[in-house]
Structure formats: C-alpha cells, structure tokens
C-alpha cells in the first residue's frame, strides 16, 4: 500500500521527461462513497509541484495567513511559484516518479471559496464560539 509520505517529495516529470520539480503537497477532497463513522471518503484530487524551498509548507497562501505583511508577501510569492495539477493530468505514479500527461494544464491551487470548505477553525470543541467570538 502506498503512503502519502511516499507521494510527497516525489520528482515530477512532464510528458517530454522534463523535470517539473517535486510534489510539495497533495490535495484531497471528501467526495467519495460514504464511510460508516467518517462520512464521504477522501480522494486524492491533485498535487502541488514546485522546486526548492520548503516555504510552501507554511501555507501562507492556502491557509490564508493574515500577516505580518513582510512574511505574507515573501512566502506567498514563494508559494505562488508552485503549480497545481489535477490528478486527472497525471499519467502514472510508480518507481518513485510522477509523470504528467502530454499537454497537462496546471490549475489554480486554491479553488474558489464556494467549492472549498476549509477545516473548522478552532477545532470541533471551539468551532461553536468562532461565529460568536467577536
């Protein structure tokens, strides 16, 4: 059985065999068949690829970290250098390499807010107060 940690950090090649960096993060979506006790199953939806810096992991852009601005502008820029590919654009993942399909098109990493529900702020226990917190 593969593990998420094996997918993360894997080199990504396009159809011509040119390197597109490595897998920086993996997006999963909860839209699969119903799993008793959990809800809809989690499907791997796509990968964020990029080169170098680990700054992507700080999630300044994707988590919507609000400040301070020098950090935000620096780390957002670094994070924007990464590109997102839907799992449909991936030809294969084996032998420790991810290969993209010919003509694979990147998408925006953060989907529009209407389709994306981020995890509840403050966790399950505090989520009740978050709306009344202010």
């Amino acid at each position, binding site marked *: 059985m593969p593990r998420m940690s094996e997918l993360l950090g894997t080199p990504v090649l396009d159809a011509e065999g040119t390197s597109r960096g490595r897998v920086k993060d993996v997006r999963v979506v909860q839209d699969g068949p119903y799993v008793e006790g959990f809800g809809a*199953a989690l499907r791997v939806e796509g990968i964020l690829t990029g080169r170098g810096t680990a700054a992507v992991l700080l999630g300044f852009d994707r988590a919507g970290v609000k400040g301070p601005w020098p950090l935000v502008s620096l780390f957002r820029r670094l994070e924007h250098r990464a590109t997102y590919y839907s799992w449909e654009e991936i030809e294969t993942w084996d032998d420790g390499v991810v290969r993209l399909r010919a003509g694979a098109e990147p998408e925006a990493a953060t989907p529009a807010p209407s389709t994306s529900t981020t995890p509840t702020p403050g966790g399950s226990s505090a989520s009740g107060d978050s709306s009344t917190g202010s």
Partner: protein
Amino acid sequence: MSGRRFWAHLHLLDRQLVDRDGRLCGNVDDLELEWRDGRLWVSGLRTGAGSLARRLGARVLGAWLDQVHRGVDPERADHTFIPLRHVADLGDHVTLSLDRTEVATWHGERWVADHVIAHIPGSGHASDE
C-alpha cells in the same frame, strides 16, 4: 462534485490524535493510500514511531519499529493503522472513535506505566489541590 478539501501537509499530517474520551494518543504520522477504480483514495491514518521514522528518512528502522508494535500487541493486531471509519472528526486535531488502548502509541505508554510509573507512590492519583 463538492466536499471538504484538505491539503495533506497543511491540514492532516502531524496533527494531534485524540481518542473518544479526549485523551491524547499520538500524531497523524502518515496517511495510507489505496488504488480503487483507477483513482487514489485515503484509506486511513498511520501513527507510531515506525511511520515517523520513515518520514524522517529511516526506512529500515521504521519497518522494524512497526514490526515491534505488532509484536507487542496482545492480539498481534496492527494498531499503527487507523481505518477512516474510526476517524470521527478532522479539525485542528483529529478525533478518533477509538479508545486510546486501540492505538499503537498506547504500547509505549502502557509499558512505561507498568514498569516505571506504577512503582512510584501516588501515580494513580490526580495532583493534590
């Protein structure tokens, strides 16, 4: 199709595991994936020193630690794997519908509790007010 979306690194990996009684019982050290119908699914969580060691780059040590976890389990069950059906909530921590005794990290806690802590007077009492 719509549903909650998560980034593996940002929202799931390394989060605190909490059992059904609110007790801390390890971290999400990895996610287990499986192929079904040509798609890749998350089948459950991995926890325990073995998975952590693998992520830190020590594959052999990791496999060995996972084996130790299985070996010390009374039923030889693999409690380093937590199938999705036992995951009650994904938030800033991950809540399980299990008791912590059914999670791999309990092996270490139990061993230390029985062999060290139990021998010290007062280990079974909450602190004096």
